[in-house]
C-alpha cells in the first residue's frame, strides 16, 4: 500500500521545522512514495515479476540568498537529522545567488481541483498475466513473428510538497501501462517494433488483443527494408515521432535555456516561428490526463497556456528562479509542461500522405540528434517510402536532417490528434528536409 497523505505531511512538517530550528530562513520539501508492480512475459511465458516500493525525500534549505539541497531514500528521523544538519552546513558554504527564493506567495496554488488522477483498482499479478497472455497470443499469430516481449505495470504514487511559506499539498496518482515488443523475421532481415498504452484508469487501457495485433502488423511491414539514395524530400512523421519534435520545442522555450542564452528560440516571443495554421497548448487541468496537475514542482498554480497562437510564440515555460532572472513571473512550469499538444490541422491523414507524389513516412528515429542551441537536427531513421498516397516499401539505415527554425515554418498537421502520451501531436508533414542514404 502506498503511504497516505498524513504520513507524508508529518514527515514534511518535521523537516521544515528542523530546518528552521537549525537556521534556515526558508525551506521546501518533497516527500513521495511510489509502489509499482510489474509482470514481464516473453514468448507467452512468465519471464519476470518485479515489485518496487520507493520512498524519497528531498529538502532545499535557504539562508538568505544561499541555497543547497539534499535527498535521501531513508526517512528515519535520525537519518533526516544528520542530513538536514549537513544541508544547512553546505548552504552556509555555498555562495549567494540573488535570484534564489521560494516562489512568490500570491502565485501559490490555492484552489486544488480533483482531476481524477487516481484509480483505486488493484490489478493483481494473475490479472496482469491474463492480460499479457491475451496480448502475446494476438501478437504472435503470424508465423513471421519470432519473438514477443511484453509487460504490464501498475503504479500507485503519493506525494506532498511543502514549504516554509505555508504551502502544503499533494495527491495520489495511478498509472496502468501495458507494452509489447515484437520481433519479425524473414530470409533477408530481422526487425523489431512495439506498441504501448498507458492510462490513469485501468478501464481506459487499450484492449490487449488490439495492442498485440497492432504491434505485429507494424513489425511485419518493416521486413526486407531497402536503403534509398540521398535527396531532398518531404518527411511525414508518425505521431509517435512527431510528439518528440514537440518536446524539443518545449525544451527550447524552457526559461533555463532562455535565461542562459542556450536556445535557438531566445528572444522569439511574439515572433512567428511556425506557419499561421499552428497552435500549441499546454493544458494542465485535463481530467485523467497523463501530465495533469494543479501546481508545479514549486507549488505555483498552473493555468492553461496557449504557447503558440497562429504560429506566434506567446510564452516561455517559466519557473521561479529563471523567471526572476528574466524579470518575468513564474507561469507554473517548473518541471516542464503538463499535457502539451498541437491542435489538429485541417487535412485528413490520407490527404497528408497524398500531398506530395513522393515522401518518406518515418516511424522510428535513433540517436540524440536535436541541438537546441543551434536548432540543428540530424537522426538515424526507419520508415516507409510513400508514393501517390500509398506505402511502397520499408526503408532503413538512412538519416534525416534539417534545422528546426526551417522545419517549424514548414510543419503541416493532419487532423488525427489523440491523447496517448502526456505530449501529443497529430501526424506531421515537413517539406524540404534532407535524407542521407546511399
Amino acid at each position: 500500500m502506498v503511504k497516505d497523505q498524513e504520513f507524508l505531511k508529518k514527515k514534511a512538517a518535521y523537516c521544515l521545522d528542523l530546518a528552521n530550528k537549525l537556521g534556515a530562513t526558508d525551506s521546501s520539501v518533497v516527500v513521495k512514495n511510489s509502489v509499482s508492480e510489474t509482470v514481464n512475459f516473453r514468448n507467452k511465458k512468465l519471464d519476470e515479476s518485479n515489485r518496487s516500493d520507493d520512498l524519497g525525500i528531498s529538502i532545499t534549505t535557504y539562508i538568505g540568498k544561499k541555497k543547497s539541497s539534499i535527498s535521501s531514500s531513508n526517512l528515519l528521523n535520525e537519518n533526516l537529522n544528520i542530513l538536514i544538519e549537513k544541508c544547512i552546513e553546505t548552504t552556509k558554504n555555498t555562495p549567494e545567488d540573488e535570484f534564489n527564493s521560494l516562489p512568490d506567495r500570491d502565485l501559490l496554488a490555492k484552489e486544488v481541483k480533483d482531476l481524477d488522477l487516481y484509480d483505486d483498482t488493484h490489478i493483481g499479478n494473475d490479472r496482469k498475466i491474463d492480460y499479457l497472455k491475451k496480448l502475446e497470443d494476438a501478437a504472435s499469430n503470424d508465423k513471421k513473428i519470432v519473438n514477443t516481449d511484453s509487460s504490464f505495470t501498475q503504479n500507485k504514487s503519493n506525494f506532498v510538497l511543502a514549504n516554509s511559506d505555508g504551502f502544503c499539498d499533494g495527491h495520489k496518482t495511478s498509472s496502468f501501462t501495458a507494452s509489447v515488443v515484437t520481433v519479425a523475421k524473414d530470409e533477408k532481415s530481422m526487425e523489431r517494433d512495439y506498441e504501448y498504452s498507458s492510462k490513469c484508469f485501468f478501464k481506459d487501457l487499450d484492449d490487449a488483443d488490439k495492442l498485440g495485433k497492432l504491434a505485429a502488423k507494424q513489425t511485419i511491414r518493416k521486413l526486407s527494408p531497402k536503403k534509398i539514395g540521398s535527396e531532398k524530400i518531404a518527411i511525414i512523421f508518425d505521431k509517435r515521432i512527431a510528439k518528440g519534435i514537440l518536446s524539443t520545442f518545449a525544451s527550447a522555450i524552457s526559461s533555463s535555456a532562455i535565461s542562459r542564452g542556450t536556445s535557438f528560440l531566445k528572444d522569439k516571443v511574439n515572433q512567428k516561428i511556425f506557419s499561421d495554421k499552428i497552435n500549441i497548448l499546454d493544458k494542465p487541468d485535463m481530467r485523467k490526463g497523463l501530465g495533469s496537475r494543479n501546481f508545479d514542482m514549486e507549488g505555483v498554480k498552473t493555468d492553461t497556456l496557449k504557447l503558440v497562437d497562429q504560429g506566434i510564440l506567446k510564452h516561455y515555460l517559466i519557473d521561479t528562479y529563471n523567471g526572476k532572472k528574466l524579470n518575468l513571473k513564474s507561469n507554473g512550469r517548473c518541471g516542464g509542461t503538463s499535457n502539451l499538444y498541437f491542435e489538429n490541422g485541417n487535412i485528413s491523414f490520407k490527404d497528408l500522405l497524398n500531398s506530395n507524389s513522393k515522401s518518406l513516412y518515418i516511424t522510428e528515429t535513433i540517436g540524440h540528434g536535436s541541438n537546441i542551441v543551434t536548432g540543428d537536427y540530424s537522426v538515424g531513421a526507419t520508415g516507409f517510402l510513400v508514393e501517390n498516397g500509398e506505402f511502397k516499401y520499408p526503408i532503413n539505415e538512412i538519416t534525416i536532417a534539417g534545422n528546426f527554425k526551417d522545419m517549424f515554418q514548414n510543419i503541416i498537421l493532419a487532423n488525427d490528434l489523440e491523447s496517448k502520451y502526456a505530449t501529443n501531436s497529430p501526424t506531421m508533414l515537413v517539406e524540404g528536409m534532407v535524407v542521407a542514404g546511399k
Partner: protein
Amino acid sequence: MKNFFEKSDLSRSEAENIVSDTLNKCDDGELYLENTKSETILLDDNKIKNSSYNSDLGFGFRAISGEIVAYSHSNEISKNSLKESSENLKSTLKSVKGTYNHEIPKSNKKYYDNINPIEQKALIEKINILNDVNNYLRSKSDKVKQVTANFLGEQKSVEIIRSGGETLSDVRPLIRFNVSVMLEKNGRKETGVYGVGGRQSYDNYLKGDNWKNVCDEALRIASVNLESKPAPAGEMKVVLGPGWPAILIHEAVGHGLEGDFNRKKTSAFHNLMGQKVASEGVTIIDDGTIDNRRGSLTIDDEGTPTEKTVLIENGILKNFMQDRLNARLMKTRSTGSGRRENYRHIVLPRMRNTMMLSGNHTQEEMIKSVDKGIFAVSFGGGQVDITSGKFVFNCTEAYEIVNGKIGSPIKGATLIGDGPSILKEVSMVGNDMMMDPGIGTCGKAGQGVPVGVAQPSILINKMTVGGTKL
C-alpha cells in the same frame, strides 16, 4: 565498510536465514544491499547553481528459477520489509523448483581503493575550482557567452548475501568533472564539451593545473564548431580518431554481444559465434580489470570477479558478455558482466571498458588514402537497434577530407551504419590506441551504468553521413 544491519531490527544472521529459506528451491538469486552517497556541485551562468547531496539506501532481493526472475526492492532494511519481499518472491515462483548453484569464483584483486571522494576534498575547494574554471574560460575569449562546469562524486557500498550465507562486498568510488562552454560570434552559437573522471579521488584528475586542460579542450571544440560548415549527406569513407570515438564499437557490436539478446535470439549476432564478423586485424575486448577506470569493477553486481573478455579476436566472434542467469541458460560461465544501476533494478549483462586493440597503421596513412570523406574526432552519444543491427552516433567535432587532406570543420551530424557489417568495412587499424577520458554512461532497459571505451584511429570504407549538403 558499511554495516547494513547496524541501525536495523534485522540482524545479519536473520537476514541470512531469510535469504537461504527463500532461495532454497531456486536456481540462483541473492540479497543485494546498497548504500550510495553522492554529491553534485554545479556552476552555471556565473554562479554556483546547485550544491546537493544524496544518500540512498536499499535492498533488492532476487530469486531465479529456470528463465523466470522474481525481484522485489525496498528502501527499508527491516525484518518486516525483507519478509514481505520474501513472500512476494515465493508467490511468483510457487510452482517451480530448482537446484541452487552455490559456485561463485573468488579473486583477491582490487581495481580501485576504498575511498570516499566526497570527503576527500572540502566543499569550498570544489567551489573555488569551479569559479576558477568560469573566470579562466571567460578571460580567454570575449566570444565565451556561457560556461557550465560540475563535479559529480559518489561512493557506493554494496554487499551480496547468497543462499548459505556466502557474502561478497565492494566499495566503489567514482568521480566526474565536466566543462561545457558556449561561444557566440556574429549571432552564431556553438558549444564544446569535455570531461574527465574515474574511480579515484578528485585530486587525481585535477592535480597541477589539469583542470585548465579540460577547459582548453572544451574551448577548442567550441571554436572549431564556430567555423564549421554544413556536413555532407550520403555514403563515404570515415576516419575515426582514437579514444572516445570507440562508442562506435560500443553501439555497433558491444550491445549486440550481450548475453541476454543472444539467448533470446533478438540480436543480429546470435547465430554468428565462431564466424568472421570483422576484418582481419580487428580485436575487441571488454575489460573490467583496468585500474581506476570508470567501467572497471572488482566484482560485478552478482559478486563475480570481473575479467578481460575477448569478444572478437582477429575478426572472429569468440565470446558474448554474460551474467549468471544468461550464462546458465546458454551453458557457459559468467564473464563478470552482471550489472545494475542500483538496488532498484534487476541485473543485466552489460559492458565495462570496451576496447579495440591497436593495429599497425598510422592516422596519417588513413587520411592520405581518402579522396572524399570525413574525419570524426569527437562524439556526443550513440544508440543501436539490436534487432536490425542499425546504429547511430553523433559527431561533435569532425572535418571533411578532400584528396587526402583534412579540410574545413563540419557541423554536427549523425552517422548511421549496420553493426554486423561495419567491422568488415574497417580497412585500416591504427597504432595509436587510446582510452576515453572517463565520461561514458551506457543506457539499457532504463538503467544507466558507468562504462569506458578505447580504440586506435580506424578507417571505415563506407558509412552514411547524415548531413544536409547534397
